[in-house]
């Protein structure tokens, strides 16, 4: 019933906004033989341009699995995934790399900055793979770091930055190639509440400037700051269009 409703509302909104993510009957099965794990079961989901969306659910419910598929880091076992209207389940490795490079930005719980590079060099890395002219790279990296409030930390190595600052460098790296979609798997999972708020403010700001954002989170306080919540249970989409206010009820139930 709920699913039917949400499908109807989706159909309505497509009239106005282009669809960025369209998952159609996606399944993901890990392992072989006896030890098969059905991480995602026949999940369908649509995200439109400009949305600010969080994915929640119990541990092991398939949140990361679906994020990896959305982020083109992994392929679904079955089903179709249209990213910006391109069926990426049909693409080869090199084309997927290209899509990750220019269409997607990914932020990880563990930051994943390269230790031997400075903040600005880390942010320049995606542009190296994109073939941006060397002269332009630094300007754009500085611009991105300024956007996340780190204009004064350009030349610090990751180990000279706090966790929150490192995550902001990672966000700058994710947005520097001007992606259509910014993805984050528990971006505040390794941060305390104060730095969590710093990072969330940046996400909110980025979304207000027009970037579509999908993030996975465990924290109700984080999810509440987004505008739509998708709830996973046992690899299925249980609710696809919860409002931040609905969270309190769910958390109780």
């Amino acid at each position, binding site marked *: 019933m709920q699913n039917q409703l949400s499908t109807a509302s989706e159909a309505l909104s497509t009239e106005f906004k282009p669809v960025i993510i369209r998952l159609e009957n996606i399944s993901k099965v890990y392992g072989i033989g006896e030890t098969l794990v059905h991480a995602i079961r026949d999940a369908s989901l649509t995200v439109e341009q400009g949305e600010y969306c969080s994915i929640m659910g119990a541990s092991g419910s398939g949140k990361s699995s679906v994020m*990896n598929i959305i*982020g083109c*880091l*992994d392929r679904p076992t079955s089903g179709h995934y249209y990213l910006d209207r391109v069926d990426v389940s049909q693409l080869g*490795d*090199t084309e997927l*790399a*290209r899509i*990750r*490079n*220019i269409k997607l930005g*990914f932020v*990880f719980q563990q930051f*994943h900055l*390269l230790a*031997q*590079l400075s903040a600005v060099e880390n942010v320049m*890395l*995606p542009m*190296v*793979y*994109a*073939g941006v002219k060397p002269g332009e790279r630094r300007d754009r990296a500085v611009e991105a770091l300024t956007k996340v409030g780190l204009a004064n930390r350009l030349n610090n190595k990751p180990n000279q930055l706090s966790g929150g600052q490192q995550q902001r460098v990672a966000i700058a*790296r*994710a947005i520097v*190639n001007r992606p259509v979609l910014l993805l984050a798997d528990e971006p505040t999972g390794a941060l305390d509440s104060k730095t969590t708020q710093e990072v969330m403010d940046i996400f909110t700001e980025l979304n207000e400037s027009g970037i579509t954002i999908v993030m996975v989170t465990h924290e109700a306080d984080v999810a509440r700051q987004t505008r739509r919540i998708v709830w996973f249970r046992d690899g299925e989409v249980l609710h696809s269009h919860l409002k931040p206010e609905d969270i309190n009820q769910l958390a109780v139930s």
Partner: protein
Amino acid sequence: MDILESIKMATTTLVANKLRSSLTMLGIIIGNASVIAMVGIGQGAQKLASEQFESLGPNVLFIIPGNQNAQRNRDVPKTLVLEDAEAIVRQVPSVGGVAPQIQTRQSVTYSNKNTNTQIMGVTPEFLPVRSFNVAKGRFFSNQDVKGNTQVAILGPDVVKKLFGNSNSIGERVRIKNISFLVIGVMESKGSFLGSNQDDTVYIPLTTAANRIIGRTSPYGLEVSFISVSAKDANSIGAAQFQISNLLRLRHKITTEDDFTVRTQKDVLTIVGTISGALTLMLAAIAGISLFVGGIGVMNIMLVSVTERTQEIGLRKAIGATQQDILIQFMIEAIILSAAGGILGTFIGVGGIMLVGAVTPLKAGISPVAIAIAVGVSGGIGLFFGVVPARRAAQLDPIVALRSA
């Protein structure tokens, strides 16, 4: 991503891991330095040997007992005798000088000192044929040879060992308990093919045969070999031919020769073959160390791939293609090998120059060896870099990112 970017990226990584990079290079450096030094020293030895043979005088021929094909045979026939030498003087017109020689090793004593040296029984002809000179005193005469006199001319090293700085001429030395009067000292000649020509005592041929060695051949006075000088460069071939014919007649040979006549050119060829083989062997040993160095590069690159799995995953997540990763790791391996190769070349060349400065070996700096060594080490980087680089490139981004 272009190749310049990849080189920059690889250099950054290598510089960030200075200790590991330099240890990896060490294998290649040692391999390369030894290839270049070994080949250079081998070639130097070859050149030195050739020069020494050329210094014998260009027209020298050697008659040695035993068949050429049976040189390994320890029982050389005792058929080469003094009378053969005399016959050559009389009957071979293309010959300038003939110097029969008897060689043995004995201990030589003076007062309470003694030294084991080479004893050379010769005739006065030895001096012109082999271009030796007396430095002090005189050489013995044909009279001394006829009369079995007990006189000796000492090499400068023998003098040094037995007499130090004091005068030797007029003193008496003992060989096999026979007393010899020292009448002269030879000019220094240096070593010849590793044997020290200055550590030699020269005595009359007959004295050596009769008093020191004892006559053992039924054919006459047996000699160790005969040095002959041809009249001029054009008569070397003729001399070789005529001497062979004469000796075949004298030795009544119907099937296989019991002697060998070698020209200097023959000897040079043999020396060339031997020292060429030596050079090749040295190069092969050095080549093995280069190979081991290459395996070191592969080993480190494999460790590096394992250690940097997360980095590889991250690079892939932000858009690196398999080819980007492959090229990055290949270039790291190639830079390590090539830089090691170039450093090794400098060290090898330095080693050669050092050897050249402190020994008579004028080791050649072979551009070919350098080109091959640097090329090979670059190739080793390529070859041993492929496996780790492919492994890195084919990592699944998600698996790579998750690895802790």
